[in-house]
C-alpha cells in the first residue's frame, strides 16, 4: 500500500464457511482510501462472499473486519452496498424513483415524508447515472443496464465514503459499462473508495487502480500492475485443485451425516 493513502478497510484473518465448506480461508489484507479496487478471481473464488463479509451480511468463522479502524456497526452510514442486479425481483411494484429513495430509508422516520433535501439527493443521483428521464418508469420495464444504473443511483443517494459493488458490469450494454466507469472515476476524484467484484480478467487492468486477487485464499493484493503478474494469475486461475480446496471438500463431505442425523 502506498504510504500517502490512508487505510480504509482492514480484513484480518477472515474465514467464512458455507455449510462447513470454507469459501474464504485466512484472508488477510488492507485496502487504501480513494481508489477503485477490483476483487478478481475465478468462479467460486469467494469474491462476492468477501464483499458480503465486509458489509456484515455473513457470519464469520474467524477473524474481523474494520472500516476506518472501527467495526462496521459504528460506521454503517459511511458504507454503501450495491447487490447483484439479479438478486431482486424487478416485478416488484415500485418505480425507479422509489427504488432510489430506498437508499435513504434508514435515516427516515416512519411519520416523516421524504424531505426536500432527500428528494434533491435522489434527483441528483438519478441525473448522475442518466436515469432522470426514466424516474417515473416502473422497474419491470428497465433493461439490464438501466437496472444497474438504478442500483448505482440508490447507492449514490446514500452519500457514503466507501462503496461496495457486486458485479456492476455483469450483463450490461457497452454504453452503460463506459458510463459506469466514468461515474466511478468521478467518485474516486471526490475522494470516495470503490470496491468492485469483477469477473472479467481482460478488462481488470484498465478498470482498477488496485486489485485483490482471490481464489478461496488470498493470492495477491496491491496496485494493479504488481498484482496482475503471470505468476499470480497462474496461482489464481491455474485450475489445479490445491490441497486447500481438497481439504475443504473433505470437510464438507464429512459433515453431511452430522447435519442430517
Amino acid at each position, binding site marked *: 500500500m502506498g504510504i500517502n493513502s490512508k487505510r480504509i478497510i482492514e480484513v484480518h484473518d477472515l474465514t467464512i464457511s458455507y455449510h462447513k465448506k470454507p469459501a474464504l480461508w485466512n484472508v488477510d489484507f488492507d485496502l487504501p482510501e480513494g481508489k477503485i479496487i477490483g476483487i478478481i478471481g475465478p468462479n467460486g473464488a469467494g469474491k462476492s462472499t468477501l464483499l*458480503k463479509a465486509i*458489509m*456484515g*451480511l455473513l457470519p464469520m468463522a474467524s477473524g474481523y473486519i474494520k472500516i476506518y479502524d472501527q467495526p462496521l*456497526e459504528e460506521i*454503517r452510514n459511511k*458504507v*454503501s*452496498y450495491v*447487490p447483484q442486479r439479479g*438478486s*431482486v*425481483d424487478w416485478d*416488484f*411494484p*415500485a*418505480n425507479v424513483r422509489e*427504488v432510489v429513495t*430506498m*437508499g435513504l*430509508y*434508514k435515516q*427516515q422516520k*416512519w411519520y416523516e415524508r421524504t424531505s426536500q433535501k432527500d428528494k434533491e439527493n435522489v434527483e441528483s443521483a438519478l441525473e448522475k447515472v442518466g436515469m432522470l428521464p426514466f424516474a417515473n418508469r*416502473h422497474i*419491470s420495464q428497465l433493461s439490464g443496464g438501466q437496472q444497474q444504473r438504478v442500483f448505482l443511483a*440508490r447507492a449514490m443517494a*446514500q452519500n457514503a465514503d466507501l462503496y461496495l459493488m457486486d458485479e456492476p458490469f455483469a450483463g450490461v450494454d457497452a454504453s452503460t459499462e463506459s458510463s459506469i466507469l466514468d461515474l466511478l472515476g468521478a467518485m474516486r476524484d471526490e475522494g470516495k473508495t470503490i470496491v468492485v467484484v469483477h469477473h472479467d480478467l481482460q478488462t481488470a487492468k484498465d478498470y482498477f487502480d488496485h486489485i485483490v486477487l482471490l481464489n478461496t485464499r488470498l493470492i495477491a493484493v496491491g496496485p494493479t500492475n504488481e498484482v496482475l503478474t503471470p505468476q499470480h494469475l497462474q496461482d489464481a486461475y491455474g485450475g489445479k485443485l490445491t490441497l486447500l480446496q481438497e481439504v475443504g471438500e473433505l470437510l464438507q463431505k464429512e459433515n453431511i451425516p452430522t*447435519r*442430517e442425523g
Partner: protein
Amino acid sequence: MAIFEFLSFDDPGTQIVTIGTVILGAVASIIGCFTFLQKRALIGDAISHSVLPGICLAFILSGTKNPYYMLIGAFISGWLSVILSDWITRTSKIKADTSIAIVLSFFFAIGMMMLSIIQHSGNVNQAGLHHFLFGKAAAIIKEDVVMFLYVAAIALVIIIVYFRAFKLYIFDIEFAKSIGLPVKWLDFLLTTLAVLAIALGIRAVGVVMMSALLIGPAAAASFWTGNLKKMLLISAIVGSLAGFFGAMISYMRPQMPTGPWIIIVLSVIAFTSIVMGTEKGVLHKWRKRQAFKNKVLRENILKIFYHLGENQEDFLQPRTLQELIERRAYNKNEILKGLNQLKSKHWVDQTESNHWALTKQGNIESAKLIRLHRLWEVYLSEHLNIAADHVHDDAEAIEHILTPKLQARLESVLKGRTTDPHDKAIPNLNKMDK
C-alpha cells in the same frame, strides 16, 4: 326477495355479519399483499390448514367457542407450522414446496382427528365447530366483530410504522441488511401478521379456504397497478367486496358454507383482473400489440403511396384501392382500415369514392419513413457489412420501432448520405415544402 331483505340491513344480525366480513376481507387482503410479494403464498396455505389443531385444542382446554381463545389457539399452531416448515427447508435437502405440503397435511390431519374426538365427546358447546372448516359468515357475532376491529387496528399500525421497511425488506433483503434494518424482526412481524389474518378468518371463511382470501385480492390487484400503496388499496377493496358477497350469500342460503362462495367471488375478480388488468392484463397486452399492428399497417400504406409517387414523380396524385393493393400483401379490408385511420389523422384524403391521396402532411410523414428505412439500410450495409440484398427485411422491421433518440443518432452517424444501397434517393425533409 331475500336479496332485498339482506340489502335493507333491517336485521341487526345481518349488519354485524356484513361489517364483520367486510373488515375481515379488507384486513386479510392488505396483509396478504405483503405475503404475496414475499412469494410466500404457499406458506399462507400451510398456515390456514395448520390452525385447525390449535382451534380444537383451545376448545378442549376452554370448553367454549370464545373467539379470543380460538384466535390464540389458531395463532400458536399457525406459527408452529411456519417454524416447522422453515426448519425442514433449512436443515434438509427438501425444498420449500415439499416441506410446506408435508407440514400442511400433517397439521390438518391432527386437526381433523381432534375435531372428530370433540364431536363424539358429547360436549353441547361443540355444535357448529365443524363450520370452522368451510366457514359460516352468519355465525359471526358482535364479539367477533369487536375482535376483528382490534386486530385490524394493530395490523394497520404495524403496517403504517413499518411500511418503508417492509417495502425495502421484501424488494431487496441484502440491501435492507446493509443499511442496518432489523430484517429478522421484520420477517417476524410479517409472518405474525399473516398468521393473525388467517386466524381471524376461521369462523367466517373456514380454515380450508382462508389462504385464498389472503392471497387472491393481492394477486388480482397486481394486474391493475405497479404502485405498492395503490396495490394495498385495490386489494382491500377486492377483499371487502368478496367479504360482502360472502355475507349476503350466507344470509340468503344459511345452509351453505360461506368460504367457498367467497372464494368463487374472489376467483371471478382474479380471473377478470388477469384478463382486463391495466398493468399486466392479457387484454391490455393484446391491445398494445393491436395498436402496434395498426401503426405498422398505417406506415406501410404511407410507404406504398411514396413508392408509387416516386415511380411517377407525383406524390400527391390520388390512387385507386387497386393500385395500393397491388404493391403489398394486404387485402382490401386491411387497406381500407389503414386508410380510414390515416384519414382521421388528416394524412390521407378520399378524393372520390375509390380514390385516395396523400395530404401535404401525409406526404412529409411518408418521406420521413422512407428516409428512416433507407438510412437504416445504409447503416446495416456500411457499418455492419451486411450484403445490400439482405438489408431490406431488417430495415422493414426496424423502421417501425426506432425511437426519436435512436433516429437522431442514426442521422448523425450517416450525415450527408443521399442514396441508399440500392441507389435510391434518400428523401431530404428540409427540401420539402410544408
